[in-house]
């Protein structure tokens, strides 16, 4: 019903798409819902949907981390984020795969740490808004999440006991820690590396971990969760600034006519996004994601084993000792409403092949796309939604809300123009550089 009857109907070909990209313009006549410059005249209904997408609110609180909004913790977290001493070989930091200049990702299809992993590095732009972390949502908070890359044998390869030794060895790390958390726990008599390995009880790291007394294990776990809480305080600051789309919405909200903040193409793309293409069903709200999981029916990846996504993530989430029900969360009680998301979870067959809906702010900066980085460009992503491959989904069932859209070449350019308008300013040095000192320097007053 929002479709203009005046555009020539062409079946989509790669060639046609390319021709359009190279600037071929199409003539169109003017239906009632279009303004004189060709931009959509948004109806009251469309306007309601558009206003639901902007402005970006403040990130939700995380009462499970009492330092989530502490500036001092965020400073130390930033120091840690860029510190390669947190990796086994001393050559990697979080920023290796979440680089501010690469959209807080790494520009690679699959992340490469000590080994090549089986997933794409997600952006950290606006990560504080996520309800679940990782593509499969196997942790429930940023601080709980951060323990895994530190210890993954494919990523940074450290262990929580190894980290404690590093903090004893390097005076700056120790000073930064102690300024926030008090005396560093003792490392006397601990093995060089040790951590739990839930998937392999015979693993040497697990065997070493078994040598620790329950009190020692508790102290080490608390220590590594405190590093996570500092990292989270920093990551919570990685939020998008104002994009052309936000300025356009502000104009629309104020009923300013003929906003120049979005090109006519981008406005047409917006109309598709909330209308015929139905992207807004999952890319909902001001971050353009619903923070939940869907199976969009990507076919099997040629080189990777089948990934069950959320279906495999759920049991890990519930078994994670760092989740909101565990002893390291700062929630005042396990019954706190923040834990509702854990109390009522259910694992269903439909979770097979579901992945977390990515946000679309800054999307131009964060390619390659999808959980396995299979699409190099946004054009490829849009072609997927437009045509849908002939092959069946890698696993599970493609949701009914993903029909082949059969977008016309010009419609693909419109959607692309809209996605490009979701880009705000780059992160400033207060986020993108490692601080010189792990502790905030107070200016003399």
């Amino acid at each position: 019903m929002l479709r203009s009857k005046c555009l020539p109907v062409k079946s989509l070909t790669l060639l046609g798409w390319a021709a359009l990209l190279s600037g071929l313009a199409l003539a169109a006549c003017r239906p009632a819902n279009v303004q004189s410059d060709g931009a959509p005249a948004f109806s009251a209904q469309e306007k309601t949907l558009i206003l639901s997408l902007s402005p970006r609110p403040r990130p939700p609180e995380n009462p499970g981390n009492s330092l989530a909004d502490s500036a001092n913790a965020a400073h130390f977290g930033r120091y840690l984020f860029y510190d390669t001493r947190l990796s086994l070989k001393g050559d990697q930091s979080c920023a290796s795969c979440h680089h501010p200049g690469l959209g807080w990702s790494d520009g690679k299809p699959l992340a490469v740490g000590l080994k090549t992993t089986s997933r794409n590095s997600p952006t950290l732009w606006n990560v504080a808004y996520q309800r679940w972390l990782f593509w499969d949502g196997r942790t429930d908070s940023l601080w709980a999440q951060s323990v895994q890359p530190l210890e993954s044998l494919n990523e940074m390869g450290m262990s929580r006991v190894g980290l404690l030794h590093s903090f004893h060895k390097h005076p700056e790390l120790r000073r930064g820690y102690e300024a926030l958390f008090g005396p560093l726990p003792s490392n006397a008599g601990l093995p060089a590396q040790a951590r739990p390995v839930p998937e392999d009880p015979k693993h040497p790291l697990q065997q070493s971990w078994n040598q620790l007394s329950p009190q020692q294990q508790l102290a080490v776990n608390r220590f590594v969760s405190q590093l996570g809480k500092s990292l989270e305080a920093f990551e919570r600051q990685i939020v998008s600034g104002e994009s052309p789309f936000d300025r356009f919405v502000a104009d629309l909200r104020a009923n300013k006519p003929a906003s120049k903040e979005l090109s006519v193409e981008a406005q047409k793309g917006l109309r598709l996004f909330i209308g015929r293409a139905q992207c807004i069903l999952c890319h909902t709200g001001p971050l353009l994601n619903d923070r939940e999981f869907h199976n969009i029916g990507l076919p099997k990846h040629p080189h990777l084993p089948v990934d069950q996504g959320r279906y495999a993530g759920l049991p890990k989430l519930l078994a994670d000792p760092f989740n909101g029900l565990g002893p390291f969360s700062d929630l005042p009680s396990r019954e706190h409403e923040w834990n509702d998301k854990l109390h009522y979870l259910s694992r269903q067959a439909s979770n097979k092949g579901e992945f977390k809906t990515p946000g679309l702010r800054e999307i131009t900066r964060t390619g390659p796309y999808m959980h396995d980085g299979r699409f190099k460009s946004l054009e490829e992503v849009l072609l997927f939604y437009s045509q849908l491959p002939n092959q069946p989904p890698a696993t599970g069932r493609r949701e009914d809300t993903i029909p082949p859209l059969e977008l016309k070449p010009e419609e693909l350019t419109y959607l692309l123009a809209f996605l490009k308008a979701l880009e705000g300013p780059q992160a400033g040095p207060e986020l993108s550089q490692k601080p010189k000192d792990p502790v905030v320097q107070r200016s003399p007053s």
Partner: protein
Amino acid sequence: MLNKKITLAALLSLSALSVGTLLGPFSASAQHQNYPKVNEADRENRSQITDNKHYRVIYTPLPDPIPLNQHFRLKLTVQNAEGKVVENAKLYVDADMPSHNHGMNVKPKVKDLGKGIFEVRGMLFHMPGYWEIYVLVDHAGKKEKATFGVTLKMSPR
């Protein structure tokens, strides 16, 4: 933040842009196909009679209206045909988006508060559009079903 009072006069129910039109025939999720169909006139009614007409079920959401993508609760009242409180019933509650062919990602818990009042915790509607809430009343050897329709709208920020 998403459950703000709706300020614009004309609000779009997403069903107006229904995906159904792209998908062809309506297909209810198999699990709930024996539940009564909601008739169009009664669609958003918060009070429904069960299929065999022995019970009336009334619900109120908390918060009201149901917020998009946030946990909410339901208060359910079960009465008999004469409008009298029904004690010692067992209730089962679930919800689907029939036109999208999926349910909720959560499993709500029902608590009997006595006097025919039940509290359902842990409901979450993660997508905008048309949902159906299914209630099974298990009482005095009878198992009867009721269906409620709810359209979840997106509201301006």
